């Protein structure tokens, strides 16, 4: 019993981490069609932000919350910078965005290595997040509960912003039909920039959250980028609902398979399952309804 509960919580917590990494990507890749390989490095920027904030503010809960906010702003600012300098020139050439952002990602990794050194740095978690809580016989680390809650808050805030705010409506209009939206007086430039700001900002938040469980090094983003892309593709491009379901499904399936086999085999089986799934539903769980002609 406690094994099932334990693995269920493990699955949910892996899922929440996948979701945090994928949420921003779901905006920039799913909604805008930009394959941003530097998304992982925006996550890394969030992690290092947490480290820097901790050096300035001292450790504890305050530095974590400040990091979350600053991490969002740093990630967002880097996203906007990338959009304005490079990506806006190649909106209709998705493969070019892949190559360019891959290069940018490598540059950012080396930059981080030059600034912070190659060995991982240590971000201290606040004291009240250490240890675990016992739920039905299984011990669930508090950091993972915190990340789960954080992921839920991010999803709710993002869907709220997309559904009810004027900016959210503009983003959805541009996604559905860019030309028609422009004809109706929406500045697609401004909308693109704000979409990129939010998407990359969420990567920064994910990076701050990851410092609670793993290493803070220049390659932290790389380990999550592929998984994030999988979540977005399985969920259906541009579908936050799909990303949520896909992230938790992949996390849970992975944790149960890993428990009965090994980490390497679990990874292989999950990949095979995804390939089979995409054969049956190439559009992912949910497909976005667009009014564009392509």
């Amino acid at each position, binding site marked *: 019993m406690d*094994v099932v509960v*334990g693995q269920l919580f493990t699955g949910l917590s*892996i899922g929440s981490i996948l979701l945090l990494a994928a949420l921003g990507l779901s905006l920039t890749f799913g909604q805008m069609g930009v394959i941003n390989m530097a998304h992982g490095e925006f996550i890394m920027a969030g992690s290092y932000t947490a480290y820097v904030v901790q050096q300035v503010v001292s450790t504890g809960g305050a530095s974590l919350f400040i990091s979350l906010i600053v991490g969002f702003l740093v990630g967002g600012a880097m996203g906007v910078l990338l959009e304005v300098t490079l990506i806006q020139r190649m909106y209709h050439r998705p493969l070019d965005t892949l190559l360019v952002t891959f290069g940018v990602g490598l540059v950012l990794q080396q930059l981080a290595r030059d600034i912070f050194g*190659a*060995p991982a740095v240590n971000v201290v978690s606040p004291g009240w997040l250490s240890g675990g809580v016992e739920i039905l016989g299984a011990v669930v680390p508090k950091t993972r509960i915190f990340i789960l809650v954080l992921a839920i808050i991010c999803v709710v805030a993002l869907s709220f912003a997309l559904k009810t705010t004027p900016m959210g409506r503009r983003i959805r209009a541009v996604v559905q039909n860019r030309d028609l939206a422009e004809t109706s007086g929406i500045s697609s430039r401004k909308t693109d920039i704000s979409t990129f700001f939010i998407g990359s900002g969420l990567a920064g938040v994910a990076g701050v959250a990851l410092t609670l469980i793993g290493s803070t090094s220049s390659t932290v983003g790389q380990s999550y980028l592929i998984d994030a892309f999988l979540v977005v593709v399985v969920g259906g491009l541009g579908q936050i609902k799909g990303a949520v379901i896909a992230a938790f499904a992949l996390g849970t399936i992975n944790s149960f398979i*890993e428990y009965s086999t090994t980490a390497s085999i679990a990874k292989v089986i999950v990949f095979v399952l995804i390939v089979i799934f995409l054969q049956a539903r190439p559009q992912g769980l949910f497909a976005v309804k667009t009014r564009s002609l392509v």
Partner: protein
Amino acid sequence: MPALPSSKFATRALVAPAALAMVGLALTACGSKASDTASGDGGTAAESCVDTSGDTIKVGSLNSLSGTMAISEVTVRDSIALAVEEINAAGGVNGKQIEVVAEDGASEPTIFAEKAEKLISSDCVAAVFGGWTSSSRKAMLPVFEDNDALLYYPVQYEGLEASDNIFYTGATTNQQIIPALDYLKEQGVTSLYLVGSDYVFPQTANREIKAYAEANGIEIKGEDYTPLGSTDFSTIVNKVRSADADAVFNTLNGDSNVAFFREYTNAGLNAADMPVISVSIAEEEVAGIGAQNIAGQLTAWNYYQTVDTPENNKFVADYKAKYGADKPTSDPMEAAYTSVYLWKNTVEKADSFAVSDIQAAADGVSFAAPEGEVVINGDNHHISKTARIGEIRPDGLIYTIWESPAPIEPDPFLETYDWAADLN
């Protein structure tokens, strides 16, 4: 029209590497001409081109100065440089000053092999110091054997290897892993859980651990490998917790250790209830993991910065003076430093820089190293080493809590252990 600039561009693009290649060829040609004994070239053992006529003698240092291994290997290059500087200041080797040719293996086994070839046949070095990963050593081994040259390899490894052309100055398994198992057994450990990264060193080490466990009545409760760089250990920690073993034997490498120890601590496991003994966490990794996440846990090595010998106090002070007070010293660095002195002592005993003379003279050559006295074994080219179990303390340093009463003779093929008969 657009065809014109692009074809011009293509021509230029082709010419540049061709020109570079020709310059390269010319340079290599010069290299072999300078050594008048060099006979043509080709696969079979070329005559050594080492120039012993001048006041200096060249040696090579070959470490990853770029790529993923650079962080570890740069420290090794630095400690080789420190040893060379000291030896030169004290009058050199056989009256000659040592000149180091440093090359970058770039974390790629194939580049290690290429650079080793270059150091031997075009720089004509008398010996090469370096290498870290087992794959880099395996790639260099045929190069050193074909050219009949010498490599000093400073890192603990999985054993089951010996070559006349390599001196292994790091630990082999009977000087690190088996003493660790002996220590655990002495502490009353009767069951173990094995966690490792999915590649050659952990797999081989765990094969040896399982054979030992079977012979000594220790139960293996579970065995898990994660892909290199893996960062999610929640399931493995759940498994470890429910397996309820007496201790965990950790052969994870690199960043995975950070995620593993954080998860371990947060799941409520600790060194008092279920200690973790690690074989590849050194002083420089503890800071990244966070000392509070790993304090109290155990490591098995032959050297720690805190080892209290006059030789080590001098080594640590000199290293910090040269490279910075915040730079820790680690086991592979100490082994690399030691290997330069072992080469010097062997050369002086042989009174020759020739490879065959060094091989003949090597047996019994000793050095008062920072870790304690070490002696070369002429049969397998490994050295005797003191085994040390260390405890990681909150200050981030590792302190010896047990050490072997005397240096342990190297036994790379585990021939003296009955239970290891099936491993080779």
